[in-house]
């Protein structure tokens, strides 16, 4: 289990004074009693839990700035948190830190169709943006599976992806501007409704910085007109290697599908048992390819994709002919995580990205590792962009099993790096993958990242203990243990 910085006795001893000052700055927006604090002791990586010293619930940028100024002046650490749906423990509290919860910043400030921009406070949910512009036929493209609950500010912090990011990009590619508050309490505006930066791309580097560089209070996103039509193709393969080759051939043919998802046999079976989506059970891999755009283009390309999958030994493909049929194709895939949850008391979701061509090798080596660790894996895979989500099945109540899962998960992610990939495609490093960073980066690589942190937060008060295995230079010292726990948001789809 990753260790966290040792609580600073000096900070803990200031709790009463801090509480008084925070209550003055944010009347009615500070939580201090143990029972209420308990609700914030984890995010969606619930194997790790920690009670925060205090929780604040600011309602606007001025209150966020006031909280940060107070904490900065008193030398108290701050952990920013959006909706708490993150899967890598990025919002895990610190025992000697203030948890800065941004869910009350929940107003949509401006919808500007002509400039194709929406300005929202950072606590607005991802889906609420699409819903707000739906009446005019627009949407916000990045669609993380938690979009009904996750906040746009959290999306900025994690640079969230989604099923459709192959064609439409991740959060970073769909942002126009942010308002961000530094640890000193300085309010900065990066970007706006215009494109590109006039100087360094600080907006770009803030995106995906996991709450270590600043606290996002306002976000300007780019919205897009909804595509005229979406159709999906569902095809089974007897051999995973053929499915992988078909994916490569589709891309090589110049087709960028809106989504391209793969499932392996255990995931297919779990999904089929759960939602009866009509998936074939006697195949090793299932591919769902979605095309969107003008009707003529979608019809032409989906026929071309069908020809390609057939040429790569796919079973006869099914093509959706109605919106309900398209959604039915997706039903099993979208239910894959809860479906796996039904066949196992617990599962741990991994998130490595690999070059697509390495898929057969990675899957076969993962299968070998199942025997080695005595744990089963079900695989779902954003095949288009090489983002793997192996789900390791386990029972947290069995002594030692969580540790085995952590070791197995680390081995899988090291394998991803070894074949030319990366530790995390969309969930973030957080606390979960922090100690694996040296497997992907050299000391000099990490040193440069740490230096960037120093430019924003020289005292290392903002979300310390996340992302980097060690914080030398601007770091504080010491370590602590964190207790384990269980999954919140059991109803959220995870894919």
């Amino acid at each position, binding site marked *: 289990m990753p260790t966290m910085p040792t609580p600073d006795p000096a900070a803990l001893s200031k709790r009463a004074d801090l509480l008084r000052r925070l209550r003055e700055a944010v009347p009615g927006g500070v939580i201090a009693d143990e029972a209420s604090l308990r609700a914030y002791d984890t995010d969606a990586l619930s194997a790790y839990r920690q009670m925060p010293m205090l929780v604040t619930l600011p309602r606007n940028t001025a209150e966020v700035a006031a909280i940060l100024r107070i904490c900065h002046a008193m030398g108290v650490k701050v952990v920013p948190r959006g909706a708490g749906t993150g899967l890598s423990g990025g919002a895990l509290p610190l025992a000697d830190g203030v948890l800065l919860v941004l869910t009350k910043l929940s107003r949509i400030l401006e919808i500007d169709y*002509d*400039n*194709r921009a929406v300005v929202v406070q950072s606590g607005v949910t991802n889906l609420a943006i699409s819903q707000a512009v739906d009446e005019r*036929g*627009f949407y916000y493209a990045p669609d993380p599976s938690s979009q009904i609950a996750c906040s746009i500010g959290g999306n900025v912090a994690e*640079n969230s992806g989604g099923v459709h990011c*192959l064609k439409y*990009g991740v959060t*970073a*590619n769909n942002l126009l501007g942010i308002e961000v508050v530094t640890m000193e309490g300085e309010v*900065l505006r990066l970007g*706006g409704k*215009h*494109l*590109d*930066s*006039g*100087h*360094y*791309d*600080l907006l770009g580097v803030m995106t995906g*910085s996991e709450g270590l*560089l600043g606290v996002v209070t306002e976000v300007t996103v780019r919205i897009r*007109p909804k*595509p*005229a039509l979406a159709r999906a193709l569902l095809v089974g393969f007897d051999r995973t290697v053929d499915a992988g080759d078909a994916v*490569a*051939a589709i*891309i*090589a043919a*110049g087709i960028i599908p809106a989504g391209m998802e793969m499932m392996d046999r255990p995931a297919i079976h779990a999904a089929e048992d759960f939602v009866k989506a009509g998936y074939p059970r006697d195949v090793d891999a299932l591919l769902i390819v979605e095309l969107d*755009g*003008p009707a*003529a*283009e979608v019809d*032409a390309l989906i026929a071309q994709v069908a020809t390609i999958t057939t040429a790569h030994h796919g079973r006869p493909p099914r093509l959706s002919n109605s919106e309900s049929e398209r959604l039915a194709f997706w039903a099993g895939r979208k239910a894959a995580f809860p479906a796996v949850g039904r066949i196992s008391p617990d599962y741990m979701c991994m998130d490595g*990205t*690999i*070059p*697509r*061509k390495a898929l057969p090798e990675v899957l076969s080596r993962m299968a070998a590792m199942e025997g080695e660790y005595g744990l089963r894996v079900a695989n779902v895979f954003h095949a288009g*962009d*090489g983002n793997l989500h192996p789900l390791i099945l386990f029972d947290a109540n069995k002594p030692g099993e969580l540790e085995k899962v952590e070791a197995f998960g680390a081995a899988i992610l090291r394998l991803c790096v070894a074949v*030319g990939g*990366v530790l*995390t*495609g*969309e*969930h973030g490093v957080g606390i979960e993958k922090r100690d694996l*960073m040296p497997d*992907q*980066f*050299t000391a000099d*690589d990490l040193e*440069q*990242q740490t230096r*960037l*942190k*120093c*430019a924003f937060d020289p005292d290392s008060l903002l979300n310390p203990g996340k992302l980097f295995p060690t914080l030398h230079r601007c770091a504080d010292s010491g370590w602590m243990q964190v207790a384990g726990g269980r999954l919140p948001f059991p109803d959220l789809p995870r894919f």
Partner: protein
Amino acid sequence: MLSDLLDAVRAGQNLRVTGGGSKPGLGHAVAGQALSVSCLRTVISYEPAELILVAQPGLPLEELKALLSTHGQALAFDPPDLGPLYGQPAGGGTLGGVVATGLSGPGRVKAGAVRDHVLGMTAIAGDGRVFRSGGKVVKNVTGFDLPKLLTGAHGTLGIMTEIVVKVLPSPPVSKTLVLAGIEGAEATRALADALGSAAEVGAAAFTPSYLPLDGLLPDRTPCVLLRLDGVAVSVAERLSALEQLLHGRAAMAVLAGDESTMLWAWLRDAAPLAERPELDVWRLSVPPMAGMGVLSTIRAAIPRAIGWLDWGGGLIWLGLPGGMADAGASVVRGALGGDGHATLMRAPDAVKALVPVFQPLPGPLAALTARVKAQFDPAGILNPGLMGM
């Protein structure tokens, strides 16, 4: 050689870092020993099915484009060739120069910017440490996204030695719908309606009546230009949807093939300003709906100004008569209205000594920017002063 670059950096002298040298007048003048990365020109790997290309920064852009086109792929952000704007031959740019300047062409409005296609890089920091960031896969959130920071940093944060770019299929067909005889608010409305429709407009520009058009467009006629890229059936369907949407607003014509390609290359490379070396040149980024008004405001103050709009109104290329002490900075930056930025792309060094080339930042942001620079280049030896610090 890589080791020569390292030696040069570790020697600790001020360095003027360049790629192909195709944009020598971009940025403030730099006093330092010249250091070119143009000898590092190898394609390290290219895997069309992975949509990934890894290359050294000195790789000539023309070689890169030719290589990609053999696999039907391209750089979707449509990099401009600004050599002629700086009195250099066309075709002299490098991959590293494109990334360092972060300048995207007309396709940026749909396909994204340079920074959206830079997935990873290796670079030498100002103190001689070599660091790598990002990765060689299209989806990656591992660690801070330093490649975004170095893209467009004009070599002031590090000397890139290896760049990973995302490449994409090039559209087999490109056609341009020309709306002739439309200007002002009507033109802005047409741009917004087209970009807000499901027609997936790939580039959207406005050219005013006074712009010399080299016979590419009807003479002395303001035009809205809308480009559609894709497979033939798709382009045909979207073109007809656009024609319906904009029916009755202006005379319409369609350009295809070389005519369409040349028109967009001409705008992308700022050709009307390359032909007029006596003009000071600005490039402004503004909210798309504001572009027309900003251009009008500037022309009202400086009647001999010429310019046009790209990116649906969000990008303004501007040529101002030379000889103004501040190259028109007070008028240009005064017209921005708080949301956007203006870069003085071309002006005599004497003028640039007095006028910030890059948009001045508000105090706290300027301080943060200086701290970022210091963390990458503690002694300030990499292109010192090029970006104003």
